[in-house]
């Protein structure tokens, strides 16, 4: 295909995505290709190989895109084995790292990295807290950062003299280790960036241009641990709310430059702890939704398109989460009732999802086709829908089922 044809294909696909975000009816429903390690099976690679060899990962991902011809792809590749190993990153176990099998996906371990009485430290100086406390706890190689001078504590000649810290041989050795990790990671990131640009030049828009979190999830996933954050709802309510407001500003600051670098305005926001059953409707409305809503609206105000992945079942949240500007963002649902979602959100938010992992892994192409047909015809009716797996394409999905899913958007009119 010529560059001109590719450009036309890119524009056509991007318009299809943007029109659906704007809740307009399009010629057909768009299909999104989003996966972690699924493509490995196209060449019989292990997940460990994918984690440690970004070039193989890219090669097989390109093959998947050429095969599926999606309307958008994700350039989130997880080839960070050398980085994780080099950092001695503690809360993650990953294929090739020696603690899970070569064909098991990476797993994040829920644990506490910030104690309940450290909220004031975080709120007073988040960067200082990260450098001196959080990062050294998170990864062995970051212990060196804990030795950085506390610059804001110094003035005049003290500030100049604090440079002596850089002469410490232990600090220098630690920084050398970090530089080595940096080299490996820069290579990985450079290759991923090239891959994204190449795929966009080949006609495929990128569906993950930036990344953000719900502030509650930041504290639950990465700082306090799920148990700590839940207890904070009772024992440290004011501090949790104040810290989340601070974290929101920091989280959002990073998004716009990334979307400009990657040349895609879609921002991926995967959610973990706001689903039905985990917290009460009142807790959701107090601790989860207000800050998340500010993230969504803030990103929209930056001219970006938030794509919020509501993991689990969030059916009971629909009436609350409809409160966002119409035609500006995407809600991707895993096991939320899609038909109810269409009913409640249809005039406000573009819906994405939710071909079940169970069908893609254990079902047949006919099962997959039947599920996609119903989604396209009911949820896709009138526009405002993108077809995707419930959490993208699961690693163990059968190739023929994924093909059936990709083809369904061309078979059935919405």
């Amino acid at each position, binding site marked *: 295909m010529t560059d001109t044809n590719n450009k036309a294909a890119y524009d056509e696909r991007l318009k299809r995505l943007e029109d659906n975000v704007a809740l307009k009816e399009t010629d057909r429903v768009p299909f999104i290709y989003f996966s972690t390690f699924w493509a490995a099976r196209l060449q019989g690679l292990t997940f460990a190989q994918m984690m440690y060899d970004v070039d193989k990962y890219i090669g097989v991902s390109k093959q998947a895109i050429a095969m599926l011809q999606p309307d958008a792809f994700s350039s989130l590749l997880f080839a960070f084995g050398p980085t994780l190993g080099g950092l001695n990153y503690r809360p993650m176990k990953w294929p090739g790292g020696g603690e899970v099998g070569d064909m098991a996906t990476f797993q994040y371990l829920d644990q506490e990295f910030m104690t309940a009485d450290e909220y004031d430290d975080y709120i007073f100086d988040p960067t200082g807290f990260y450098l001196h406390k959080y990062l050294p706890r998170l990864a062995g190689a970051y212990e060196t950062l804990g030795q950085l001078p506390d610059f804001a504590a110094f003035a005049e000649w003290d500030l100049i003299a604090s440079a002596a810290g850089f002469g410490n041989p232990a600090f220098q050795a630690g920084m050398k280790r970090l530089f080595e990790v940096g080299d490996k990671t820069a290579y990985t990131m450079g290759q991923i960036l090239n891959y994204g640009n190449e795929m966009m030049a080949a006609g495929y828009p990128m569906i993950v241009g930036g990344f953000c979190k719900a502030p509650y999830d930041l504290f639950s996933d990465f700082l306090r641990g799920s148990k700590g954050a839940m*207890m904070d709802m009772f024992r440290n309510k004011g501090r949790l709310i104040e810290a989340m407001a601070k974290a929101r500003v920091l989280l959002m600051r990073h998004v716009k430059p990334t979307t400009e670098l990657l040349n895609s305005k879609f921002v991926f926001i995967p959610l973990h702890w706001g689903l039905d*059953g985990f917290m*009460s409707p009142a807790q959701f409305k107090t601790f989860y939704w207000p800050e998340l809503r500010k993230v969504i609206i803030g990103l929209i105000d930056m001219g970006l398109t938030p794509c919020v992945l509501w993991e*689990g079942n969030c059916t009971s949240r629909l009436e609350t989460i409809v409160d966002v500007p119409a035609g500006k963002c995407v809600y991707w649902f895993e096991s939320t009732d899609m038909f109810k979602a269409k009913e409640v959100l249809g005039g406000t938010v573009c819906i994405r999802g939710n071909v079940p992992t169970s069908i893609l892994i254990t079902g047949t192409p006919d099962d997959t086709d039947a599920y996609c047909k119903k989604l396209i015809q009911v949820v896709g009716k009138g526009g405002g829908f993108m077809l995707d797996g419930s959490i993208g394409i699961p690693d163990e999905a059968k190739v023929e089922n994924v093909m059936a899913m990709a083809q369904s958007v061309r078979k059935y009119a919405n």
Partner: protein
Amino acid sequence: MSDKGQELIDLIVAMDTPGAVDLVTRMLDEGTDPFKILALCRSAMDIVGQKFEEGEFFVPELILSGDTLEQISALVKPLLTDTGGGPARAKHGKVLIGTVSGDLHDIGKNIVTFMMDVNGFEVKDLGVDVPQSKFVETIREFKPDVVGLSGFLTLAYDSMKSTIDAISDAGLRDQVKVMIGGGQVDDTILKFTRADAFGLNAMEAVRLCRDWMGVTEA
């Protein structure tokens, strides 16, 4: 029940951990039987479980009341002697639970274990990433009525299936009911694994066990 006994139950159910811990300290100072305090805690947890079942409480309340209980136990347990307490509460039946091979997630499993315990079942929890052979071996020793297989990742589908196959191959399948649970489990996976039932939350697991063991009381 004494006023203080009722007050302790109310404080635990109201999620007032410092209040509950203070009261227990005072009760112990006044010479209250530590076994009585544990019995009061159990009554409070029955109410917490009931409210969870009715949709008034959610996971945060379970976590918080569990933590309150831990803090009270730390005060009470050093004072326990073998002579007190009276007969242990009879259990409805035995449940063996674990997260299947390859999967390290345990939050859902722990909630199910907690609710099973609160609802009067004897639960043995094998932890996470449990090999098929470990389930088989423990079924032989522990003789559970129900086996609960938990998993969060999609790789758990195959692990659940192979665990159930291993139970069948060992000739033990007729002796146990098997329930599966976790974020990705549905009717399709029930058929795929040939388990007896699946549940989407802790209360469904409790209801399944009650039905299978013929437990009528809540």
